[in-house]
């Protein structure tokens, strides 16, 4: 069975919205967290996890009805799902298809793991991280985070 046939069986097509494909297996919940989609959401969301994939072995897929992602949202997704592709769907067809690109800076998305960082102390400041080749770096205390990035998502 091809990869394409496999998803069609598992997750139905959407009329308008966004399909985030080729998320590394197990990371769909992190993508949902970035998009602030939680248990109380009233958006129509389909999630496929650990779907067999020719490219990744196993992948996750997220489909969101009636919402086209902003560039900022795509930038942040790129940190945890660098292989993801974003398909904007209109009238059941793929209107636009993008590979994610890592931004230079992400703001307000990650919290600094350094407990001595000024951004952890209730100051009126939005967290800001420079994106490195293999991690991110706090713009305030300069702490570098390379592993377990999703543990620091604060949205």
């Amino acid at each position, binding site marked *: 069975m091809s990869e394409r046939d496999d998803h069609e069986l598992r997750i139905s097509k959407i009329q308008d919205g966004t399909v985030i494909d080729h998320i590394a297996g197990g990371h769909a919940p992190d993508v949902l967290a970035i998009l602030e989609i939680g248990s109380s959401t009233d958006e129509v969301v389909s999630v496929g996890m650990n779907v067999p994939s020719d490219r990744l072995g196993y992948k996750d897929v997220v489909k969101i009805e009636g919402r086209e992602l902003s560039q900022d949202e795509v930038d942040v997704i790129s940190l945890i799902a660098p292989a993801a592709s974003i398909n904007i769907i209109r009238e059941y067809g793929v209107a636009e298809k993008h590979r994610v690109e890592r931004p230079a800076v992400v703001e307000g998305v990650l919290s600094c793991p350094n407990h001595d*960082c*000024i951004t952890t102390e209730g100051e009126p400041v939005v967290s800001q991280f420079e994106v490195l080749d293999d991690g991110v770096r706090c713009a*305030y*205390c300069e702490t570098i985070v390379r592993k377990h990035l999703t543990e620091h998502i604060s949205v």
Partner: protein
Amino acid sequence: MLDRDHVITAKNLSRADIETVLDRAAAIERDPPSRERHAGRLLGLCFFEPSTRTRMSFEAAIKRLGGDALDMGPVASSSATKGESLADTVRVIEGYADALVLRHPSEGAATMASEFVDVPLLNAGDGAGQHPTQTLLDLYTMRENAGGLTDLTVGIMGDLKYGRTVHSLAYALTKFDASQHFVSPESLRLPRSVRYDLHEAGAQVREHEDLDAVLDELDVLYVTRIQRERFPDENEYRQVAGEYRIDAETLDRARDECIVMHPLPRVDEIAPDVDATEHAHYFEQAHNGVPVRMALLDLLLDDSDETDAADATDDTSTTDATDAADATDDSANGGDR
């Protein structure tokens, strides 16, 4: 005169910035400025951590330039105890002073505070982060006593992980292509972020656990205190404290010209018998805090004068243009005035 409004991290000071400050400091030592030079200017001292040398040398510097210092006083008697944010505190004190000096226990505090003020802000230490004005006086001391700043071989020993003076100094020495040797126990190596930057900048860096591996090559030995207050665990502190001490006998193995520096306060990492040797330069280093901070304040306050003057010119032009436009509008509306 300086290519920046605030002094937050040595990483962002260019070689030209550093040389400008050091040259001005040397000029101030040769020919001290008039006490009228910055008469009436006020320097706000915001110290959220203890300080002797930094606080007093900034106060001495502004007073020797003819200005005065406004000291926030101990944190215990400030509004911080009522829960006021640092952002609010600096915005308030900005209204009282022409420049601010900030020391704070949180890393990144000065970066954040600088986003909330328009007057020059000088980082006097942000936790285990940076201490760039200490670095300027360190470099001044090296330049005066080690034959310049180029081609130096510098050993930095002690608490490299939590020592903010070390982090700033490493960035600055990199701009002068120094050969840098970091001597510490494994647990107190330079933080990953600093090693990353030094690597990216192409710095000549080697790390050692034993001073003897490099002592006889050094032009400068920069010793730092193993800082008890930076250790969350007392046992970890006790385990490493005392392993990195020097005395006069240690320095028998150093070059005669090697200068020994320390940001002070020392506890027992430099034995008192070193004080009488030709190597010891740490008290001179502390004294250099005044001319170097005078130079820095002189440059920053000059810059803010120029900015104020430019703003005033802009305001005048804007007012004139607006008045002219208003007059035209009145004529166009057919007003008989």
